[in-house]
């Protein structure tokens, strides 16, 4: 049993920490987010040169061959630095789908370009009505002359503005809520019939609503009609990764709040000397520690593909949602009026945590799934029959 990073992981972590401290100060970050599409192409090139974009990909495509622990290391450090570059949509979602399900030809065509930083991607899965239900898909695709033609609309497509290629979940058969009959179709972002409306999320990242009108797909990613399992797998891997970035953000907030309470003086003493505040800081510290514990638990279970993997992941997402809101709320409160301003990074971290809570399903949604899993798992004796009167 060990909870230590290996040498390679420590090196990756150190290099991201160095990048953040040298190039990602508060003003630099604000300037970066203000750029077109909300991130810096220069940074992205550096990420490629430093090998960060290669981490989750198989070695046969030029990847690092990393597992969940390696991805955790990257995302936690990005989260701590509030890095705005689209690692999640391009590398983990778009790249993750290609790696999980695409045929060798498609993989060979695109994965090296993702690794090289030459291609931006996105995954369009959400629709106006679908909320957190991944299988609720009204966007349809029909076959015409050997090609799939898409019609419909997707919302909140992260990195939808910068993406060169987009993978779209579409219904090729079955009813609106069926898990069967969902296909993953790759489209060129510049294809005829695509209409993108770009906007910013509260944490600065760019998203798009995308309307598809008779758009010809370039290729299907994985077998047609069997996309649901692929989506679920890739989204669960990505969930683990965003939880790592959430922990990085939470620990940054905890550290900043602690420091503020040690230096801010009122009544002639540091406010951290007041017991009411000390106990609140212990509570948020415990929330961070427990989130870290669940992250390690889920990452190790995913790495070992153990029976605990699904349960741990669901528990982690619940904890990230609730503890993230707790830590964020306390950070604003204990910073007092300054916590309300845009002059400190606090609010930006809080917004990132709020978006992560909703991403892929919020705490309530995941807790329902968790309850269904754990209450059924022990239910060998689950048949409940009221006793005869």
């Amino acid at each position, binding site marked *: *049993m*060990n*909870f*230590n*990073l*290996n040498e390679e*992981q420590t090196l990756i972590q150190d290099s991201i920490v160095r990048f953040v401290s040298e190039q990602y100060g508060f003003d630099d970050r604000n300037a970066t987010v203000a750029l077109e599409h909300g991130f810096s192409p220069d940074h992205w090139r550096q990420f490629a040169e430093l090998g960060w974009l290669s981490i989750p990909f198989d070695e046969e495509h030029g990847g690092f061959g990393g597992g969940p*622990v390696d991805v955790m290391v990257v995302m936690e450090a990005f989260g701590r630095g509030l890095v705005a570059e689209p690692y999640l949509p391009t590398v983990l979602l778009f790249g993750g789908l290609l790696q999980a399900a695409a045929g060798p030809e498609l993989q060979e065509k695109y994965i090296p370009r993702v690794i090289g930083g030459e291609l931006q991607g996105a995954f369009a899965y959400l629709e106006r009505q679908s909320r957190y239900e991944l299988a609720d898909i009204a966007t349809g695709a029909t076959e015409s002359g050997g090609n799939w033609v898409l019609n419909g609309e997707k919302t909140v497509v992260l990195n939808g503005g910068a993406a060169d290629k987009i993978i779209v979940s579409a219904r090729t058969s079955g009813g609106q809520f069926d898990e069967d009959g969902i296909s993953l179709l790759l489209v060129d972002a510049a294809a005829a019939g695509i209409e993108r409306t770009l906007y910013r999320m509260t944490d600065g990242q760019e998203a798009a609503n995308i309307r598809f009108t008779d758009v010809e797909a370039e290729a299907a990613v994985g077998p047609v009609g069997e996309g649901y399992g692929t989506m679920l797998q890739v989204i669960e891997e990505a969930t683990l990764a965003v939880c790592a970035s959430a922990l990085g953000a939470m620990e940054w907030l905890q550290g900043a709040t*602690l420091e503020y*309470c*040690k230096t801010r003086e009122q009544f002639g003493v540091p406010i*951290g*000397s007041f*017991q009411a505040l*000390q*106990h609140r*800081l*212990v*509570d948020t*510290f*415990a929330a961070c*520690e*427990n*989130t*870290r*514990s*669940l992250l*390690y*638990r889920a*990452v*190790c*279970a995913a*790495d*070992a593909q*153990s029976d605990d993997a699904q*349960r*741990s992941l669901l*528990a982690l997402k*619940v*904890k990230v949602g609730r503890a993230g809101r707790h830590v964020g709320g306390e950070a604003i409160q204990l910073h007092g009026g300054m916590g309300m301003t845009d002059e400190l990074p606090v609010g930006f971290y809080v917004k990132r945590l709020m978006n992560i809570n909703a991403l892929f399903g919020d705490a309530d949604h995941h*807790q329902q799934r*968790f*309850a269904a899993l*754990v*209450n059924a798992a*022990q*239910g060998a*004796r*689950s048949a*409940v029959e*009221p*006793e005869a009167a």
Partner: protein
Amino acid sequence: MDTRFSEQDLAFRDEVRAFLAEAWDEELKARVGNLQTMKEGMIEWQHRLNAQGWMAPNWPVEHGGTGWSVTQTFIFNSERAAAGAPDVMPFGVVMVAPVIIAYGNDEQKSRFLPRILSSEDWWCQGYSEAGAGSDLASVKTRADRDGDDYVVNGSKIWTTYAQYANWIFCLVRTDSSGRKQEGITFLLIDMESPGVTVRPIDTIDGFHHLNEVYFDNVRVPVENRIGEEGEGWTYAKSLLVQERLSIAEVANSKRGLNEVRELARREINGGVSLLDDPLFARRLTDIEIDLMAVEYTELRALAAIAEGNTPGPESSLLKLQGTEIQQRVQELRMDVAGYYSGTLQGELSAEELGHDYADAAQKQYFRGRASSIYGGSNEIQKNITAKYVLGL
């Protein structure tokens, strides 16, 4: 980063399961579960653990410890708790023994440690006093040197199972001139010494475990002093860290929560299982998620200790969170019992009412209120964490 069990770990798990299947039998369960026979039942259980060499996993191997890895300790505790078997009485093995091992002399080690392993001695803890609770360093029980003896006068309170104990380890004041943390001495006192009196304290759980212990000119040989005179506070604090780690009882809470789940599955409200009530499910899973987290917080702490870090103030956070979870499980069990959580076994037992767990549920609930008070109240644990971990 890896939490996988090795082949050896899996073999060890099988060994633990086989041991428990044999040693924790129905007859012993019944004896330990009955208040009248609890003491001799516990001693028999400890005999069986000791015969296996598993009485004191936390000790160094040369004194009879097991030398288990963190994973093995985790496996043993998980399996033990899952089987419903109790932990050993902590006062000897977990509390006083590490102090004797760290600060006692060779004679004290050879005199007391074997008797703890063999359960010949039942220890109790003489820390709190009427005027020294959270402010433990305010102890006033005096020990005055008289030749080769100390003469002890004063009283201790909240002494768990003093009525069973033949030894008590005490914090006594040998000097009042300096800071209150100075002048405290750590003494081992034979409960059969003339002048020791035990008075029971009635508690809200209706079960006699707490006592007051009075010392009236009790003569204690100087050879029963641990370490140096006046240095007892240092020894006392190291014991508190051990005690707090043991109080978290994560493995027991896991078993408790699973029991509550199965009880809730069988409770029917309006034709629907309580487990399918979304409000109940929310509460149950809130606890379970926190428990899964604290389980790994504990493992992380144990792994750090195994790598050579001294256990320290992080034990406060485990104590705090472990006891909060225990209480939440107890509360939920009470709520599952519904009306029957208010019944006392009298002429018509809860068993006859069809809710045989209800009586134990309310006793555990009331007894469990103590866990956020003993070992340093949870508010004190927050103060310790704020000061020593957060640097406030």
